[in-house]
């Protein structure tokens, strides 16, 4: 049972704080993603685990042993680099065999194991190819096989799918999951692509500006974001700044720009008068009159500004009287055909469709988060 633990990691470059207080336990066989926009410190965290960078403070523990000062070549981590970093002077088989030869394994074993690993990643028959003779996806697989050949304590993947096109990326996502199940070791996966993180991870650490905002399962992170940033970064969210008016058991009453709303306390206790953020996911926002699963959570007057047909849903953008843009994803049962651009509409949601983020929202950030484009376009 191998566990990887990072504890209160802090790393600075001059005045720039790249990483602050990262603490995370990873169990054997767990698939953990470091997710965040570029510059958030996720790659730094990975490189500290690999041993290419050294933390200013904090520790990296493997099975409880501090490995902070151990150089990378004696950590037995497997790394898959963003650009693959295959050795261009070696064939696929020699690339894979590199780690075994370094460990002075007998030639017979080296050959057998390299063949096995290439088979695992689906590259049988490509043993003699040089990297420049292979496609990006194939190079990716070689990099994977090479990193796994020594049965590392953890496999570290630094945006490994970033250079692949959408189709291939989806194939490789599934491949990675399959391979992880087969080898059963911890995968630490760095990505800026929240969809990729949601698809593949057991747990995700959402990072921004060196901080770790939330660590949790994809479901937790999607439905119960700890900060407004997480809410916005994972999927699309409509965010409204609200003030707590009162709490009765599980139900919290808040005042927002368009009226009074209700939400679940989710076990938390709210101070009356405190500023928090109300989040409604687009799929939970509907025009009044459409079926509302459960008790009403609130509603807001708005004008339809655009309607875009996207297949399973119609993307409906509205603007409230206060000038805040909101987005709703309407299914057939929501009767989107009754709406037209420019017409007034009352948007509503159920109490379970709303979620209170226990953090104040800068009023400039009110409205829909701009992650929509990434989600569909990237």
């Amino acid at each position, binding site marked *: 049972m191998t566990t990887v633990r990072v504890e209160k990691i802090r790393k600075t470059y001059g005045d720039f704080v790249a990483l602050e207080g990262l603490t995370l336990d990873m169990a054997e066989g767990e698939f953990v993603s470091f997710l965040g926009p570029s510059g958030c410190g996720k790659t730094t965290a990975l490189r500290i685990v690999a041993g290419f960078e050294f933390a200013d403070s904090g520790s990296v523990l493997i099975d409880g042993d501090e490995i902070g000062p151990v150089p*990378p070549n004696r950590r037995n981590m497997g790394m898959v680099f963003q650009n693959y970093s295959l*050795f261009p002077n070696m064939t696929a088989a020699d690339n894979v065999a590199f780690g075994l030869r*370094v460990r002075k394994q007998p030639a017979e074993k080296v050959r057998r194991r390299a063949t096995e690993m290439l088979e695992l990643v689906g590259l049988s028959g490509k043993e003699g190819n*040089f990297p420049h003779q292979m496609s990006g996806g194939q190079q990716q697989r070689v990099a994977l096989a090479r*990193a796994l050949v020594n049965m590392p304590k953890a496999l570290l993947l630094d945006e490994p799918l970033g250079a692949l096109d959408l189709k291939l990326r989806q194939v490789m996502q599934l491949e990675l999951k399959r391979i992880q199940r087969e080898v059963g070791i911890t995968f630490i996966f760095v990505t800026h692509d929240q969809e990729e993180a949601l698809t593949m991870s057991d747990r995700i650490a959402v990072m921004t500006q060196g901080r770790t905002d939330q660590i949790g399962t994809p479901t937790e992170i999607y439905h119960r974001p700890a900060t407004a940033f997480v809410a916005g970064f994972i999927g699309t969210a409509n965010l409204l700044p609200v003030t707590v008016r009162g709490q009765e058991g599980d139900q919290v009453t808040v005042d927002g720009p368009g009226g009074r709303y209700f939400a679940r306390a989710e076990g938390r206790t709210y101070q009356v008068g405190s500023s928090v953020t109300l989040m409604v996911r687009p799929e939970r926002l509907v025009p009044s009159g459409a079926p509302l699963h459960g008790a009403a959570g609130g509603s807001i007057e708005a004008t339809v500004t655009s309607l875009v047909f996207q297949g399973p849903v119609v993307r409906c953008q509205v603007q409230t009287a206060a000038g805040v843009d909101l987005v709703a994803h309407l299914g057939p049962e929501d009767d989107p055909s009754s709406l037209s651009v420019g017409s007034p509409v009352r948007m509503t949601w159920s109490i379970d469709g709303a979620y209170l983020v226990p953090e104040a929202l800068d009023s400039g950030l009110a409205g829909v988060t701009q992650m929509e484009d990434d989600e569909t376009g990237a």
Partner: protein
Amino acid sequence: MAADDDTKGLRKGRFAPYGLLSPGVIWLLLFFLVPVAILFKASLSTKPSRFATPTFDWAWGNYSSAFSQYGSVFVRSFVYAGTATVLAILIGYPLAYWIATRGGRWKNLLIGLVVVPFFTSYLIRTIAWSSILADENPLVTTLQQVFGSDFRILATPWAVIGGLTYNFMSFMILPIYVSLEKIDFRLTEAAADLGSTTWGAFRKVVLPLSLPGVFAGSLLVFIPAAGDYLNARYLGSPKTSMIGTVVQNKFLVQFDYPQAAALSIVLMVIITAMVLVYSKFLGTEGLAV
């Protein structure tokens, strides 16, 4: 008519690629193949008297005397040039490596400094060395106190080899630098991650990838060094002369064109053979990046 045909051919595009090649082909023909052919013909000629025009008569004797009379000079030239090449690698590689990896924003300046000696004439640089290494120079007088008063640097084989190494050093550093510069040094991280030591990563990854530079540099140093005579002339003694000295003298002083031509051809053939063996040995094929 002819012009008409030409345009037709060009329109069809069949001859266009050959047309584009023609400047290179003409260049090669005019400035390499033709002179070599003339040289080869001269090497098989005899001169009835010193200032007469050579007559072509399959005089293979020029070649046998090239070996019998000047065999030892050839051997000496190749030994000196080979030693200079090895020394240039040993000195030039670490320097190029250091500039490529540690040069940072000074890289271009540092590479510029490598080239700076070229702004001075080759001859003047060599003569400058003969001053620096002169017997009454403090450097030599100091060493004389260690090795005895007969110690000297000039007029020894090592002075000639040192001169060759120095004079052709940039030809070694530049191609090595270029090939190192192309290497993604993150590969060494990949190697370290797989358990390799820094030295292991260098030996298995960086060194093989930089071999094309070493190969190019070796040729650029060895070939001119083997034919050089200025270093032997200014830094050596009558016992350290190289084949270039002989060829120069045969051409310009003795007017013995056939013998000079035969010596040049032999030099050319031996160097070509060595290059072929060397490239086979280094196996540049697998090095394509």
